[in-house]
């Protein structure tokens, strides 16, 4: 399978060509290049998938090494790919959904001035995403992990003239880096624990073979640190805050990066590390708890949003929470299955919302929409299919995947997770259909100008919608649990997850799907229907008249004023983070700068000043004291000499006189002596 290098390389090629000469090419050529490389990458992915399936089940784990990336002494990391059922599925999703979204983008972004830059970034993103899922060691994964973060940053801030967009991009990057802080520490702790055991390596294969030898306490820490990375990338509590803001990016970007692919990287990472996480079920419980709490928490915020994309954003956070709940309880297959169906239906709904925004001339407020069904039937019908899927209505894909998660949680004894999941499912159905009703039914609340321009999107946009709608509808097939040998997804992913003790257990239980599962299925469908029903009473015109007086949007909003305000303002989490973290850090930075200039540099300058002072003082000392002394000496001498000078008149006769007088005195002394 050496040709797998083409899978990421093709999008990279597209990005390079468009990045270098894209500005000189026509938009048609740019779009063609971007879509062609994606289509080709998808075909190669299909071929890879096919070749993998030809292998006997036990051999479906192929490592293809291309070259040594970093090597030094014992530390050696290759650019190498691991092709196994998990990565094969992931590349199909990434390249397939990616291809559709590229095609869609050619329509959606067509009028943008920087079309080529957009296509370049989008291709580049797919390259990194494919590296992430294909890498056969943690560093290649990390390369992709950081790369997708970068592309996310670039694409969220694509319309960088808008302050909100560039702020959102930066926020996404920085919050992700906080997650990566944990992730990279987890990696090194893992590496170091293994090297103590004589198995220093970052290759999955070696790591998973030896991971059980690591001290459980350390392993717990490793598991938690890696999960911190996942909470950043996959927008879980407490690091989810960047994702709603990320909606500032173009809508196809939200579909591809912030719904279908990148945000699921954390789920993929945990699933990939199933051998590790199976050993530490208590960490799994934490992951599941964080996941299910996020699911509920985000869903409550989704209930009251009026921005068509924000609803989807909170819904994405919530659905990602489901996936973590699944992988947390050890139901890896269910988690990955939901990842896949979510990629279909959430990708679809984002693209659908893009189609709506496109038609509405950029308007995103659902309060100004309504009645769009008559203007854009394809968008409307496909969107409703997506909503049915996410609401968990059979036989749409979301039903099977969500239900499997709930069932496995229940079956493994996590009743609380099941119950919260069920409640969240009800809320999901509610806010999704609130969105459907507000957008597509009733009177159009747009202004006349917008109304006049309402139109269905071009086929470049509707065809991807239709394909994704079909996938959302029937994509659940692989997870239908009515077969003796378990679901097709289970069978397929078994080589990856089979060795985890947890999953084997699940498999054994999963084979005998009993009547209890049917009852629970019925319960969750009932809950979903209730959600849809409650939404219809509030927002669907023909149903409104049956609604009791307390069940109207206004009366609910006024009856629960405080709660509504709290939800509407997203629990003030952003403000709390700003107040507790961001502002103090900024103040501290300013304080550090003042310290640097005011204390350290002040001291330096003081030393310089003091030196100059001493120099000046010495100078003065020199002039007045030292030199002064010398001068006063000389003054003294001069003064004295003025006295004695009188003797030295220079007249010979004076000297002769003195001489004679002196001689006379001596003679007198001698004679008298």
């Amino acid at each position, binding site marked *: 399978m050496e040709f797998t290098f083409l899978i990421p390389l093709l999008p990279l090629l597209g990005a390079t060509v468009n990045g270098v000469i894209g500005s000189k090419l026509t938009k048609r050529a740019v779009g063609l290049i971007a879509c062609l490389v994606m289509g080709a990458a998808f075909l190669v992915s299909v071929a890879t998938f096919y070749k993998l399936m030809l292998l006997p089940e036990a051999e479906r784990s192929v490592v293809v090494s291309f070259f040594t990336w970093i090597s030094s002494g014992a530390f050696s990391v290759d650019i190498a790919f691991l092709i196994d059922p998990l990565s094969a599925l992931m590349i199909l999703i990434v390249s397939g959904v990616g291809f559709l979204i590229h095609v869609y983008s050619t329509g959606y972004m067509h009028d943008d001035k920087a079309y080529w830059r957009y296509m370049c970034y989008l291709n580049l993103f797919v390259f990194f995403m494919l590296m992430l899922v294909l890498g056969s060691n943690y560093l290649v994964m990390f390369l992709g992990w950081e790369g997708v973060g970068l592309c996310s940053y670039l694409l969220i801030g694509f319309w960088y003239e808008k302050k909100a967009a560039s702020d959102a991009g930066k926020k996404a990057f920085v919050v992700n880096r906080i997650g990566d802080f944990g992730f990279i520490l987890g990696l090194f702790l893992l590496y170091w624990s293994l090297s103590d055991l004589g198995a220093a390596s970052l290759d999955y294969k070696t790591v998973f073979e030896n991971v059980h030898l690591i001290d459980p306490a350390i392993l717990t820490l490793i598991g938690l640190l890696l999960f911190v990375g996942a909470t950043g990338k996959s927008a879980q509590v407490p690091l989810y805050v960047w994702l709603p803001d990320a909606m500032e990016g173009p809508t196809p970007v939200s579909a591809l990066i912030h719904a279908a692919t990148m945000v699921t990287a954390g789920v993929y990472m945990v699933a990939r590390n199933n051998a590790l996480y199976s050993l530490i079920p208590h960490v799994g419980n934490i992951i599941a708890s964080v996941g299910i709490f996020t699911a509920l928490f985000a869903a409550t915020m989704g209930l009251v949003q009026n921005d068509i994309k924000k609803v989807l954003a909170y819904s994405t956070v919530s659905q990602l929470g489901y996936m973590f709940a699944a992988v947390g309880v050890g139901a890896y297959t269910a988690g990955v299955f939901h990842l896949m169906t979510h990629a279909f239906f959430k990708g679809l709904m984002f693209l659908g919302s893009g189609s709506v925004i496109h038609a509405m001339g950029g308007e995103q407020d659902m309060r100004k929409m309504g009645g769009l069904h008559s203007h854009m039937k394809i968008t409307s019908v496909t969107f409703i299919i997506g909503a049915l899927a996410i609401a968990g209505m059979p036989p749409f894909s979301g039903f099977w995947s969500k239900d499997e998660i709930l069932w496995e949680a229940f079956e493994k004894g996590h009743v609380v997770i099941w119950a919260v999941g069920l409640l969240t499912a009800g809320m999901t159905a509610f806010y999704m259909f609130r969105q459907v009703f507000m957008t597509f039914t009733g009177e159009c609340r747009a202004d006349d100008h917008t109304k006049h321009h309402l139109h269905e999107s071009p086929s470049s946009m509707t065809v991807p919608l239709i394909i994704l709608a079909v996938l959302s509808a029937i994509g659940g097939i692989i997870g239908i649990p009515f077969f003796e040998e378990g679901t097709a997804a289970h069978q397929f992913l078994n080589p990856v997850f089979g060795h985890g003790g947890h999953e084997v257990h699940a498999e054994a239980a999963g084979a005998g799907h009993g009547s209890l599962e049917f009852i629970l299925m019925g319960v969750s469908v009932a809950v979903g229907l209730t959600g849809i029903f409650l939404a219809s009473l509030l927002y669907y015109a023909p149903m409104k008249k049956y609604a009791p007086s307390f069940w109207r949007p206004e009366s609910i909003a006024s009856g629960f004023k405080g709660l509504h305000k709290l939800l509407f303002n997203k629990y003030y989490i952003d403000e709390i983070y700003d107040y507790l973290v961001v502002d103090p850090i900024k103040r501290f*930075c300013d304080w550090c700068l003042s310290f640097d200039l005011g204390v350290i540099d002040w001291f330096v300058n003081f030393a310089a000043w003091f030196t100059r002072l001493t120099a000046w003082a010495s100078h003065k000392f020199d002039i007045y004291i030292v030199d002064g002394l010398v001068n006063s000496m000389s003054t003294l001498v001069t003064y004295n000499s003025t006295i004695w000078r009188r003797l030295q008149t220079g007249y010979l006769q004076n000297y002769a006189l003195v001489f004679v007088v002196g001689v006379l005195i001596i003679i007198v002394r001698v004679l008298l002596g």
Partner: protein
Amino acid sequence: MTGLTGFPILSTITFLPALGALGIILFYKKEWTDLIKWTALGTSVVTFAVSLYLPLTFDMADPGLQWVEKTVWIERFGISYYMGVDGISLLLVLLTTFMTIICVLASWREINTKLKGYMALFLLTETFSLGIFMAMDLFLFYVFWEAVLIPMVFIIGIWGGVRKFYSAIKFFIFTFVGSLFMLLGVLAIYFYHGKVTGVYTFDSTILLLSPVAPAVQFWVFIAFFLGFAVKVPMFPLHTWLPDAHTDAPTAGSIVLAAVLLKLGTYAFVRFTLPMLPNASMAFAPLMIGISIFAIIYGALVTIAQKDIKKLIAYSSVSHMGFVMLGIFVFNIEGLKGSVMQMLNHGISTGALFLLVGMIYERTHTRMIGDYTGLFKELPVYGVFFLIVVLSSMGMPTTNGFIGELFVLIGAFKAHWVYAVFVAFGVLLGAVYLLWLFQRVFLGNFHYAGGHGLKDLGLREIIETAPLIILIFWIGLYPKPFLNVMDASLTRLVKQVETNYRKGNGEAVSPQASLDAAVVERKVE
């Protein structure tokens, strides 16, 4: 040049720029500006080309000094002209010869006054810097170490910005005072060694064979520290750096960041570790503490900056903290990360200063607040800047990642707490760099000057492109760079260990002694 059997390649590389400088000073009229520029460029290109001979003939398996030139200089005092290059210095030599070309190009339009002196001084800076990386005789090392100060001070003081005199003098006094302490340390080793062994010599390979007693090491370490730490610069001796950078002309900033900041860390690796292993070990906790503090503190101060050049200057304090940490964790990974980061910091921070210089040339302001949305008007410039920013924050596929990775591994090996701080520093790096990028490049285009700006011209692209290529080359295929330093650093680690035990008075097997000794390979 007695005792030399072949061509003195190292001296040739070192003194070629000086020769060019001499030529410019002696034979050129100051009006011949184009000729001066082209001669300086030609000299630097030829020097670089000749220096490429080194990696081509470098023996990676040989940990010792290669292309050694050794000749007696002042016999009475045991001073020799002793030059050699090994895997530790090779990359730094190449960095110096390479960055000088960039510097000359960066000065092409910026410098309009006294061009003759400027170019000559620049070439002299190159000669002296190369001398420092090659000198294996402590006295010779000291001579180069002091000499490099002179051209640099003039470059800042004459062609600098608003507070050029203040900055130049601050730079001079800081480093000069530091160097005096270093000289004291060198003399202490010299006399101590002479007294104990009867051999009075400045030859570092001989001095290395019998390290001085731990008590003496203690004082020498402090002396060396004051000399080297100023150049790194380590907290709290760093405040000359932001001023020097801000007031230096673009090329001055580049050479300061890319080359001069490496002198200190290089000297720690080359001399402090193997000559003073016991003191180094004893001081390691303190050194690590200061380094970690510098990483975090430097980053925090960087976040608060409002001047782009000052911001990059302060980020150097943080980045050099990584390098120092890697040195004092005492393992091969950390050292490798350090040497790698020296190279990376030279490339990335050099590139940042280069890019800032380009925009300064257009607008004559460096305040972040004076710009927004440059990306719209200057897309090529924006892309270059973004790539360099990413490299500086350690993005995988760029050079910064490789260096930080090894420092991180080394730090982890020493103690996990160090790694936590390093990783936190990496996180903060993303904050200040991305925020800088956002404030300057994103948003609606506006800058205080008003009129439109031109995107990069051909010369500017040619200047930047090689750095961009290096960023990705090291990021994607760092193997050749890592291989170059591998053997020498492995030997260095052995050397430190052996000398540590010698210093403690333990018996050392002759074989271990031999393994640790520096092997010279003369030019053939």
